[in-house]
């Protein structure tokens, strides 16, 4: 390059004209989880981007083949780790579909309530992080405060704040605590109040709206062909929700709406999640009202459900039951099943193949955020570098689910 203190004639200066390659590497605060984007920039706009995922691949699906069906629960927990209960419930339902059993009514309401609380936690994280990355730190802290209330409730119920491993084939690990209904209602009220505050703070903010409105648009046709489901697809205007289209548990018996966007941009994806939180709160209230206070949580099948520990220590039958389930693994009949639920990011599917033994032959997790991330390229090409942050945030790619 020419030295700086020399007078230059602008017509003689050589300006580089090749596009610039910027590596927004896997370790980057704006890359939720670990995703690498190699961007080809022309000035501020992105000509091409190469999205590389897989940095969080932990080999879950293979690991499932080295344990028993019950040992899969900690793995699915750590897929979408901001809404782990939805993963647990999804996997339990898949196993129960294969067995042809249905859990008792009390368990169904319990699973729904916990699942919707997990969904609220997921959306709080996503929207809070989106706001924070645009510079709005306060609403992020408010949302995290709300999320913490939910996590405290989860800790009371399951013993862990985040990755609970609470689901079981044929029920749940423990019945609801005595204060569950009271605390769940209180938490949901508080969370809704905080969501209202956040909305008031953000929806009138010029900077926030300018950064999100009209940014990162994807057409409906593209969204469908990419296989998007969940809030991203609903923001594109398509009202597909597994809970409404193929109801499971008691979703057919509760009232809730499906928020749908109009412009399919980042703002719509943000707002759809805010509205979904309100709908989930509605569902939780209905579950809490209708869940029976007495009755079994687990199905009464000695082939899949572990007996009470006190029985295991004292009686031979419970010892045998415990022994067979733990040592040989609970056995699912040979065959294959595809079971799907509405996860935090869309249709969370489990395609499982069983060979009749206690060890899974194949567990394939259909990760909704993997498909959403596949659309990242489409969404940010021809946007500006600064738009990457809200676009990527609005897709809610959870590394654990995307890479497994």
């Amino acid at each position: 390059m020419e030295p700086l203190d020399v007078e230059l004639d602008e017509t003689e200066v050589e300006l580089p004209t090749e596009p610039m390659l910027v590596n927004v590497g896997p370790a980057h605060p704006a890359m939720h989880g670990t995703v690498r984007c190699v961007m080809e920039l022309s000035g501020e706009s992105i000509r091409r981007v190469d999205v590389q995922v897989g940095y969080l691949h932990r080999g879950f699906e293979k690991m499932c083949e080295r344990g028993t069906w019950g040992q899969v629960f900690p793995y699915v927990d750590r897929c979408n780790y901001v809404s782990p209960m939805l993963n647990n419930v999804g996997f339990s339902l898949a196993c129960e579909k294969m067995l042809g059993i249905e859990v008792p009514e009390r368990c169904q309401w319990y699973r729904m309530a916990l699942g919707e609380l997990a969904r609220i936690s997921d959306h709080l994280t996503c929207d809070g992080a989106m706001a924070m990355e645009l510079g709005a730190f306060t609403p992020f802290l408010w949302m995290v405060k709300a999320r913490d209330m939910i996590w405290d409730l989860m800790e009371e119920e399951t013993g862990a704040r985040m990755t609970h491993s609470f689901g079981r084939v044929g029920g749940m690990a423990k019945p609801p605590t005595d204060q569950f209904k009271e605390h769940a209602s209180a938490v949901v009220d508080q969370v809704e109040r905080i969501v209202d505050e956040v909305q008031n703070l953000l929806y009138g903010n010029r900077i926030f709206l300018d950064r999100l409105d009209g940014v990162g648009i994807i057409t409906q046709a593209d969204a469908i062909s990419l296989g998007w489901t969940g809030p991203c697809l609903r923001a594109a205007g398509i009202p597909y929700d597994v809970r409404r289209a193929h109801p499971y548990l008691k979703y057919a018996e509760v009232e809730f709406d499906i928020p749908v966007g109009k412009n399919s941009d980042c703002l719509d994806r943000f707002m759809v999640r805010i509205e979904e939180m309100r709908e989930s709160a509605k569902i939780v209230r209905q579950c809490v009202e209708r869940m029976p206070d007495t009755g079994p949580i687990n199905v009464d099948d000695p082939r899949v459900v572990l007996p009470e520990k006190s029985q295991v220590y004292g009686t031979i039958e419970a010892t045998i039951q415990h022994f067979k389930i733990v040592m040989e693994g609970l056995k699912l009949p040979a065959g294959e099943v595809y079971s799907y639920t509405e996860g935090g990011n869309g249709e969370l599917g489990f395609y499982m193949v069983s060979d009749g033994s206690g060890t899974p032959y194949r567990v394939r997790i259909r990760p909704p955020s993997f498909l959403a991330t596949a659309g990242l390229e489409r969404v940010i090409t021809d946007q500006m570098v600064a738009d990457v942050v809200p676009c990527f945030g609005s897709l809610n790619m959870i590394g654990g689910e995307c890479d497994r």
Partner: protein
Amino acid sequence: MPTFSLDGREIEFQPGDTVIAAAHRSGIDIPHYCWHPGLSVAANCRMCLVEVAPPPGRGAMMLDVLRYDEAKGQYVPAKKPKLQPACQLPVTPGLEIKSQTSEHVKEARASVQEMLLLNHPVDCPICDQAGECRLQDYWLEHNGKQKRMKDEIIHMPKAVDFGPTIVYDAERCIVCTRCVRFCEEVVGDPVLDKRERGNLGEIVLAPGRKLDHAYTLMTEHVCPVGALTAKDFRFKARVWFLRSVPSVCQGCATGCNAYTDFDPRNQTVFRHRPRDNQAVNKYWMCDEGVLDYQRVHKGRLLESKVRSQTVAISEAVKAAADEMRNFGQSSAIVLSAEHSSEDNFAVFELGRALGIDKVYVTGRASGQGDSILRDADKNANRAGAQLVTNGAAVGNAAALKTDIESGAVVQVLALGSQVETAELAQLLTKLSSLVVLCSHEGPLASAARVMLPASTWAEATGTFVNRGGLAQISEKAITPRGDSQPAWKLAMLLADQMGKSLPFKKGKDVKAAVSRFASTSAGAQA
């Protein structure tokens, strides 16, 4: 073949079969404890009860029973058909049996299971049978409920010393009398008997006796629960960590079919179990054979030695090649009746490549035989070792002794660890040169100038020909221990070192060559 109907399926049977035997032959399992295809019928466990369709024109024989009525909350009189034990019922053409399609049978099985577990101790965590226990399997499959008895179980003697090999636990025993029948019928030594009855039933020894015949470990094998345990295997390993391969017992020339159970995590062989083979050993093995697996780990030579110095295998191969360069007219090959045909074939071919034409076979000294299973020849492959020479003359231990004494043989390349007599063992030290491929300590290893460690039968797949001329394959269980390698590989290393070529390059060539010899033997390929 005549057939009868079982759960709507037509099953073939042979005249004289019972229902359970015919079903067993067709691969259908009717749950049972006391029945065994190799023993007489006792019909005391009642687990194999099945419903028999009555003859046309007559109703089934109905019994008065009490059944619990949930609505009334009490037991009410009911009727159920009398069921028959499948192990005792002879099959006749046109018989219609219902086992798992009958509700009465399902109820009966659940009840029998409840009864068997009524006084059963909570021993699963310390019981060796866990993982291969019928009580566990059948409870989960046929019952699945808690027993209705609320009292403490009847306490019986536990850990009773039955003899040098077996420990008995009366609380776990379901008194199926398989052990009693085995000792009486197969061994011909009625040392066990049942005492008392009802929930006080237990197995006892004949007065003044111990369980000390040659097949005691088979009582542990037939016991469907953890009542009889082998002192050798107790508390050593959990069966779900063990893998099995089909193998051939190395204890004697009978060549009983076995399973070698080993733990792949630490490459240790833990036990032998019999494998069914009607032509060779039916369902049984003797104690010597069952315990023979210990030789995989005991008394092994795992490093090469030149004189008494431990050296790396490459050095030992060089030293052996140096020794064998002078081998010629007064040299001999000694094959081993203890080693597989593949090992013997390779060493024989090595000898031929070196121009050695004197061949002998040695092995372990003879022992006690009997008319049940045991053979006096305690080597598994004497017949196979002789066959690999493809007709060339093979001398025995006595001939070798004579030839060493007369000076006709002064240099020896030997395969194997043992020789039959002490005199021959003495004579080995008089040889001017002795190169040995052996697996265990013994007279050959002690007298050797150069010793290369060979793998045992458990560390390589091999063919063994039994006393009847039947060639059987024993499969590899664990990887070769220490520096040891299969003897046929050692033979190839020696040939390479000496610049000689053998008529094979890989393991499967050796196998193919051996199978040609094996198929010329009197028996058929197993």
